[in-house]
């Protein structure tokens, strides 16, 4: 694939959803069907265009193109490399499925003519983050996506949603300003913020450390890193379920992506190690993992429990980044994929349950597996993958991460991963076991007739089930052997980044 084709494709991927946003908005005045189908087509097309870049990504093509200069030495530019491709592919895939899922889920909701344009605009800005060629463009798209996501968070417009949204907004702006500070320090020290330069900052200094901390605040806030996670457990559960799936499954990853770019493009592996900055990241990651899992245990609302689980899972990705060797980075990138699959399933399944029955409390979910076997089946697959049961993709991430930790001579991290798996089991199993083996609504599960399991099937619509099933299959297929596309892409990405990540 030639460079110019790639540039045309990525420009299309960013511009198409952004142009379609007003179109969808005006289409909603004429017909709901038109609006919905346009939304699905746009997200589908974006996914298809992204996938079309696959051969270029595998061949290791790297393209960097300046669009125009905003200020002297500061430009808007786009870039394509394998890391961009991985993130863009997984997010447009999840986005496509969530849009399909939304068709039925949102049918009873209000303000859909606001929801769909916003959903598609967020897709465009998310792809823009991944294909941005310098930190300034990345920052522009990052802010755009964060502000757009606010409208998804407060969609229900309840008192609770507004409060969570306000918290989210304030944190987002703090994060945005921190990013701005980081970027400007990099510009001051290195004279450029382009991703095409390799390591922009060559030596440690006080300012460089401040820049690193600023990036850590800006991107870490988005990724739900401790102690900046406070907005996440409020904001993710109040959004409509498909939006929660996107917020937790995809948009959190923009923070992880940003940190990867910072580590490999602004600084370098040597600089991180010599400054001891990997330890900062490692300590925060360990706290994030353990704290997220521990707090998830205490939650009674299913979506809140899932949100806390997201915090702990993003901790894995941060942990992989802090170890900084081949296996660990592979594990981190692979876990970006895995967690996107798993957490979208969990949120979409929870959404299907809430949509069908209105149940949000975990205690009320007894026996729900008998009413909604497919939904709960998919939920169980994802939950087991979260725990790290072997043939599922969660196991492969943890295995690779643990290998990386051992390579680096840090068995302590393996212990953390194991404890967290145990905690995951402790908070996921009490959801799925009673769901299948208890009587619906029955308190007396000891005395009831356990052998006579009745299935009163009241499933959600096929439009909501099919994304779930597809994702569950992905969880299984991409975990079965390390010889799958996703794992190979993760390996290639890791090798690419460790080589310096520049042109």
């Amino acid at each position, binding site marked *: 694939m030639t460079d110019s084709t790639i540039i045309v494709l990525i420009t299309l991927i960013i511009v198409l959803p952004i142009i379609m946003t007003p179109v969808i908005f005006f289409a909603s005045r004429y017909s709901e069907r038109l609006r919905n189908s346009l939304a699905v087509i746009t997200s589908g097309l974006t996914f298809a265009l992204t996938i079309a870049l696959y051969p270029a990504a595998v061949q290791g093509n790297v393209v960097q193109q300046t669009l125009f200069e905003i200020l002297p030495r500061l430009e808007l530019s786009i870039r394509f490399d394998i890391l961009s491709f991985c993130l863009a592919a997984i997010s447009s895939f999840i986005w496509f499925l969530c849009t399909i899922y939304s068709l039925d889920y949102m049918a009873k909701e209000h303000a859909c003519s606001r929801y769909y344009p916003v959903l598609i605009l967020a897709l465009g800005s998310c792809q823009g983050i991944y294909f941005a060629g310098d930190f300034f463009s990345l920052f522009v798209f990052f802010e755009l996506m964060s502000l757009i996501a606010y409208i998804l968070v407060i969609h229900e417009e309840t008192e609770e949603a507004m409060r969570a949204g306000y918290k989210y907004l304030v944190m987002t702006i703090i994060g945005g300003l921190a990013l701005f500070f980081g970027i400007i320090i990099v510009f*001051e020290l290195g004279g450029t913020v382009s991703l095409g330069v390799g390591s922009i900052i060559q030596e440690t200094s006080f300012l460089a450390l401040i820049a690193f901390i600023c990036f850590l605040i800006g991107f870490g806030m988005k990724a739900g890193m401790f102690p900046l996670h406070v907005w996440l457990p409020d904001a993710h559960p109040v959004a409509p379920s498909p939006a929660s799936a996107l917020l937790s499954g995809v948009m959190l990853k923009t923070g992880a992506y940003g940190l990867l770019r910072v580590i490999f493009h602004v600084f370098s592996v040597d600089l991180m190690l010599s400054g001891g900055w990997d330890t900062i990241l490692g300590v925060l990651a360990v706290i994030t993992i353990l704290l997220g899992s521990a707090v998830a245990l205490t939650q009674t609302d299913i979506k809140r429990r899932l949100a806390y689980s997201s915090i702990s899972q993003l901790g894995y990705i941060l942990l992989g980044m802090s170890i900084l060797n081949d296996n660990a980075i592979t594990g981190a990138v692979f876990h970006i994929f895995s967690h996107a699959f798993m957490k979208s399933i969990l949120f979409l399944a929870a959404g299907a349950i809430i949509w069908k029955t209105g149940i949000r409390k975990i205690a009320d979910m007894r026996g729900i597996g008998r009413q909604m076997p497919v939904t709960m089946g998919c939920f169980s697959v994802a939950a087991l993958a979260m725990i790290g049961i072997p043939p599922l993709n969660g196991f492969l991430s943890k295995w690779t991460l643990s290998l990386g930790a051992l390579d680096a001579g840090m068995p302590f991290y393996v212990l953390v991963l194991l404890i967290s798996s145990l905690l995951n089991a402790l908070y996921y199993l009490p959801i799925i076991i009673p769901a299948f083996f208890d009587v619906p609504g029955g308190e007396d599960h000891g005395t009831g007739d356990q052998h006579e399991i009745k299935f009163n099937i009241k499933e959600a619509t096929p439009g909501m089930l099919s994304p779930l099933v597809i994702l569950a299959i992905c969880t299984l297929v991409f975990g079965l052997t390390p010889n799958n596309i996703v794992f190979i892409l993760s390996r290639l990405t890791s090798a690419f980044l460790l080589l310096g990540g520049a042109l």
Partner: protein
Amino acid sequence: MGPLEHLPVLMVVIFFCGAFLMPLLFRWARPICAPLMVAILAAALVMAIIILQSVYQLGPQLYHLGGWPPPWGIELKVDLLRVYMLLVLFVISLWIFIYALRDLGNELKEELIGWYYTLYALLVGSMAGIALTNDLFNLFVMMEICAITACAIISIKEDRECLEASFKYLILSAMGTGCFLLGVAMLYMATGYLNYDYLHGSLVEAIALYPRNLLLAAALFIVAFGTKAALFPLHVWLPDAHASAPSPSSAMLSGLVIKIYAFALLIVFYEVFPAEMLQGVPLNEIILWLGSLGAMFGSIYAMLQTDLKKMLAFSSIGQIGYIFMGIGFNHEMALIGGLYHVGVHAVTKAMLFMAAGVIIYATGVRKISDMDGIGRNLPLTMAAFAVGSASMIGLPGTGGLISKWYLSLGALEMGRPFFVIIILISSLLNAVYYMPIVINAFLYHGEFQFRVKPVPRVMLATLIFGMIVIIISGVFSRPAVVLLEDAVSRFF
């Protein structure tokens, strides 16, 4: 050269002529008043553009009024810096005037409108004079005209609040002028000149002879311009004056009048005072700290306001702080940032005041808490308000980000990351008080409780223009920044 040679003085004179004609025409030929004013403003804008071209071709030019050479004659100067200021001045005053055409009928008595035009022309003319002048005495005269007309366009509304506010403004402004005159006298005593270029040349020697007098003069200038430009803690007059005035006047005062004094301070500090003068006592440092305190406290006060226009007025105190920070850093990048912010904030704050004016026009609502849900009734107005807020916070894609970028870059180049943090914290504070207004306007659950009058198209068109300018200043900012780079490079 031919007739084009006289353009610098023409830019000032047509306003003064227009000002004298307006009351007469308003009595006998009322319909042509407004078009004539628009024509004058547009003509001045065209002249400024022509001058910009000639400055690009021929470099800075001096104009001697009546052919009298300095140091006695009045000298006007055009260079890139001044032309930038003039362009900002004329574009924005034309834009505000078009808005005012529809809004004034709502706020003023019919027979006062002619006088309002007079005052408006005098105000713009005197500001152009302040920007163009090359000697201190002329600056003093123009400042007096500007101060009195600025008071008059507040008190023209004739209610108790306006009169009180404009009286307060008049007294503090007169105090500032007094300080300025005293400072000018000291400089004249020490050097015998009032012309900027002559002063600059002779001050180098005079510093050795009269170090204390000259420092006192510099201090007096800071107080004089600081009072007039609402530099913290000399800002006390601003909130009342800007909040109670008719909306076009508020837009004019917050958008342009306070900037022109900051600009005058910049010219005096960079063009008149030699570098040695600023070395002994850290005058720059004082301006820098006062600017950053203003940026913080202006925002903090703004958070406490319940009246929309009061909040916007306090926000101006915060924003003028950025401009003074740009002057105080004494670094090229920061100065570019400060000057860029002069333009950006002029557009943004003028637009926010216009949006507030539209809200008052259409609904009569002034309290922020009454504005919940207003976005459904006045979508375009609140969209403009949202864009303006984004620029105030400095979100990407708006001009506010570019000025903050350059200010921060200057701060880092000077090795003062602390001030970047101040800029960021004050941006956050801006977000805290601007965002809830926009959010509640669009996403409030209930209905808007007040009756909404239809808004004239012209007013909406002016708001759309403002939005476009703000976005252009954030995305296609390169030409303006390059112009400013050329303009300030001679100071460093």
